[in-house]
């Protein structure tokens, strides 16, 4: 149900953009909605992170995934069980840039009463490909938001297109993004456990991103638009000197609208894992809780059963057994 709902929703969004452009609402789809989206995105993102920040981390709860620092002659695993800030930075970098934890993924199954384990790196590979290519796609779009285009943006474009296939030359990351998105979708459908846990909130952003990639690829290779006019529009957005040039194909507005929706949806969705991973207390804490005291700002006053109360109850028994007592 979630899947169908999300699919229909994304198609409907594309249709809205199509109809809107046909009705001549170019200013709405080309200027107003993109600006609104970026404002909602930034404000929503900040508010969410601040909300997380307002809750303290009362206890020191890193998940330790390697040997602790203890005796000097025992080799510590400094990345999976860091005892210093530097170690934590390393751990977080591995986690954020290379998806360290997903790399551990295993497939567990039962065969003839035996639990068997198999290496299963597909999810790691698929999601790394998805995220990295999405990031590169995002960065190389800076050619639409800078003038003159910086050398490093051109460089990324050149590396991305190094295979020099076709005209305009094929940019690998677009294809990889689409393929990886497709893999993540198919995995949701064909892995029975993952399908069982999937919500509309899982399919919707995936379809939205696939829709963005698809419309982008269509626009670059098949239904071409006047790229110079597109840049005129995007530079207008970036310089706050807006205008919508005549004659940009409708596919561009569909692409832009889907992106606007994605940005506006971002802070209210699971996509906030982008910000959340930095704050995850099982990953970003140094495992030194016996070495340095961690302070809980709301450490509660509690009622305890004191030694005096204990001795009062058991004094005679203790004396009989020769256990020392405070009050004879």
């Amino acid at each position: 149900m979630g899947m169908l709902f999300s699919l229909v929703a994304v198609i409907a969004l594309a249709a809205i953009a199509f109809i809107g452009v046909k009705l001549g609402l170019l200013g709405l789809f080309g200027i107003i909605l993109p600006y609104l989206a970026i404002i909602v995105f930034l404000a929503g993102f900040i508010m969410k992170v601040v909300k997380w920040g307002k809750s303290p981390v009362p206890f020191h709860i890193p998940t330790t995934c390697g040997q602790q620092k203890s005796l000097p002659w025992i080799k510590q695993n400094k990345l999976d069980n860091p005892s210093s800030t530097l170690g934590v930075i390393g751990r977080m970098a591995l986690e954020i840039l290379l998806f360290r934890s997903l790399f551990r993924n295993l497939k567990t199954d039962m065969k003839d009463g035996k639990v068997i384990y198999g290496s299963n790196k597909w999810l790691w590979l698929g999601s790394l490909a998805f995220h990295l290519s999405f990031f590169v796609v995002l960065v190389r779009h800076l050619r639409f938001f800078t003038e003159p285009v910086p050398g490093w943006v051109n460089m990324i474009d050149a590396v991305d297109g190094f295979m020099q296939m076709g005209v305009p030359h094929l940019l690998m990351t677009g294809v990889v993004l689409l393929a990886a998105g497709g893999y993540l979708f198919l995995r949701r459908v064909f892995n029975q456990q993952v399908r069982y846990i999937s919500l509309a909130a899982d399919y919707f952003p995936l379809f939205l991103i696939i829709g963005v990639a698809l419309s982008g690829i269509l626009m670059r290779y098949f239904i071409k638009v006047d790229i110079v006019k597109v840049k005129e529009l995007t530079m207008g957005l970036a310089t706050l000197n807006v205008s919508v040039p005549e004659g940009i194909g409708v596919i561009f507005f569909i692409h832009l609208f889907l992106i606007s929706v994605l940005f506006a949806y971002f802070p209210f969705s699971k996509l906030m894992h982008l910000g959340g991973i930095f704050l995850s207390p099982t990953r970003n804490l140094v495992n030194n809780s016996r070495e340095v005291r961690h302070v809980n700002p709301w450490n509660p006053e509690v009622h305890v059963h004191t030694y005096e109360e204990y001795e009062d109850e058991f004094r005679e028994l203790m004396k009989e057994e020769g256990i020392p007592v405070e009050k004879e």
Partner: protein
Amino acid sequence: MYNGGKIITGLIIFVALATFPFYANFGKTVELPSELEAEPDEMHLGNIPLVNMRSEHMKLLDQWRDEVVRGGKRFIEYDGDEYEKSLQNGCLGCHEKQEFCTKCHTYAGVKPYCWSCHFAEGEEGLL
């Protein structure tokens, strides 16, 4: 807020990255290179009308290359005349490269690989 220093620093970095286009261009008025203000003409070779220039020229040039280099068909006949399918002699025979090609490509951040082979005497290959 708890760990406010770190969180706010992180947020500032994030916002700085996300809004890069806005401050990178702040106060700038970007004008189109004059050549680009012209409406995209139909592409032509002599008198032959071809495809839409802005969106399709790269495909046609690519097709020409294959026909000439692999198929050996160098000329198009039109209205009794013969025209050479050539970037160097056809397009750049009349148009000036800097104005006609480079400006637009630079503006859009597109780096065609035409120039890795096609360069005039004295000009450096761009590869």
